[in-house]
């Protein structure tokens, strides 16, 4: 092996070494950067039960709007930490809680008391009293939240915004 060739292989080794080191430092730096972007996927929020009022507040047969806090409201979330559900007292002992999000594209459905229908303002989705689709584009029934009676208090379990998947 003559001199210039030896130099060339030494050079190319050093080039590879230095670019690899640069790439490595970039990868290391990108770990916290990408973590901030993917943060919502890295942490799991445990769901909690929220009190929505005393049992006596709800009349049998009535459907009312209840508002409660999300599972893990940040100090800077303000009013955005609120969620709503439509709660109906089916009998003395049983309740049904519907998500207020239309299963079509998530807009807020409203309960029309006299018509006994849930209606969505965005694209005209309509649901019957039991949450099943009555008309319009929604692909599936309104999502139900878990609800329980705890010592004379009605409690709803927090839940992610219901996202309709393609197979629905």
């Amino acid at each position, binding site marked *: 092996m003559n001199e210039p060739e030896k130099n060339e292989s030494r050079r190319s080794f050093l080039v590879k070494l230095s670019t690899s080191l640069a790439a490595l430092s970039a990868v290391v730096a990108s770990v916290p950067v990408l973590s901030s972007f*993917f*943060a*919502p*996927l890295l942490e799991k*929020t445990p769901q909690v039960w929220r009190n929505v009022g005393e049992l006596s507040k709800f009349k049998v047969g009535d459907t009312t*709007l209840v*508002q*409660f806090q*999300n*599972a*893990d*409201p*940040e*100090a*800077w*979330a*303000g*009013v*955005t*930490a*609120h*969620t*709503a559900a439509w709660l109906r007292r089916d009998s003395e002992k049983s309740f049904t809680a519907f998500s*207020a*999000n239309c299963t*079509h*594209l*998530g*807009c*807020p*459905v*409203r309960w*029309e008391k*006299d*018509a*006994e*229908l849930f*209606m969505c*303002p*965005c*694209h*005209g989705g*309509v649901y*019957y*009293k039991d949450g099943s689709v*009555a*008309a*319009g*584009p*929604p*692909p599936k029934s309104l999502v139900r939240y878990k609800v329980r009676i705890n010592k004379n208090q009605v409690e709803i379990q927090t*839940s*992610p*915004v219901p*996202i*309709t*998947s*393609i197979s*629905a």
Partner: protein
Amino acid sequence: MKFLKKIWHWVDDRSGLTEIFLPLIKHPVPPGSKWSYVFGSATLFCFILQVITGVALALLYQPSSSGAYQSLEFITNKAAFGNVLRGIHYFGASGMIIMVGVHMIRVYITAAYKYPREMGWISGVILLFLTIAMGFTGQLLRWDSNGVWSSVVAAEQLGRVPVIGRPLARLLLGGDTIGGHSLSRFFAYHVFIIPAFIFLVVGYHLMLVIRNGISEPPKAGRLVDPKTYRQWYKDMLKKVGVPFWPYAAWRDIIFGTATIAVIILLAVFAGPPKLTQAPDPSMVYSQPKPDWYMLSIFSLFALMPARIESYMIVIGPLLTIFLLLALPFASNKGERSPLRRPWAVFGSVCVVVFVLSLFLAGERSAWSPSFNAKPLTAAQINSADTTVISGAALFYKKGCLYCHKINGQGGLKGPDLSHVALRLSAGQMTTRIINGGDQMPAYGGIMSNGDMHKILAFLDSRR
């Protein structure tokens, strides 16, 4: 004077200003590139306006889920010229979207995307989608109830992506629900991430204009041949090219100035969109509607057959992106003149008509129940029969009027029933009311026989 000249010479020599920029502004362009060539630069003018007014808004804005809405109220009602500033930023966005669209149609109709300008088209397509992303995220930053529900709608759309839909939706909202992380993320997208890409791609797009030259106005019968085009273009410029500054640029300046003047006038006299309610996701009595440039898509989702919709939400955008990117590969040579490419003109007209019709349909939003319909008046009912009168009251209470019109009052979703008894018998109406249809609930399980009888009496009196 001599001294100042000396200073300028020093600055120019050491900074290289003339050396770098003179060839750029003086680069030769084909003659005859007239008013149809101004839309790209108008887009750029709008973008610069957006950057400047965006920075000004950032001086007044609170990028947090809890504070953004109050700061918007402050900008709108209290800050000096705050409302005008918002207006300029809003109409600047509108202007940018319109100019991007017109520029793109011009490039397509005159086939300026053909050899050797394929990358110009591709970078332009990327810029189109970045611009739409800016429009959408910007609308969210208004952070009123419309902003909140628009982000939920976007999350629902992402949720339709197979397998990774739910994580994508979660990523967009910044968690399980709307909350503290949502607005911070939208702010970062709108103010840092997307603009950074726009700066990069705009720079590249302009670099390509200098490198490949602007396309010469097409002439029927003069074909683009990749083997000879570059040499031909070079020779043509040498023979008849004119310097960009000032012989072509003056039109860009006049049109750009006029565009910005219109934006400012609209900002002053029409003003920005009114703020809706606070960004509280538990306030369900809200009627979300996107800004005008998203309205066509909003309509598409309402009008598409429900069976294919979930698929189209995913396939539609992907197919659009694919087709746009594939265009310069599918045809990169041959005829450029719109006179010899009638299908290209026809296709463009179809797209424009399609988008405009959807926009107009969105303005009407006939598919939405008209919640603000008022109970029918005695004049509208026009009957002394008590059954008919109580039927009319029920027609309102049961939600029928939200979708059906009676003598000018009511919704647009279903047929106008002002004269329904002329075309349907009582039996036919009963069947329809009991069974409903795709667009109408089946009232069979909801309404008592007595109510049904009254409503039928009312409808049967509509002649």
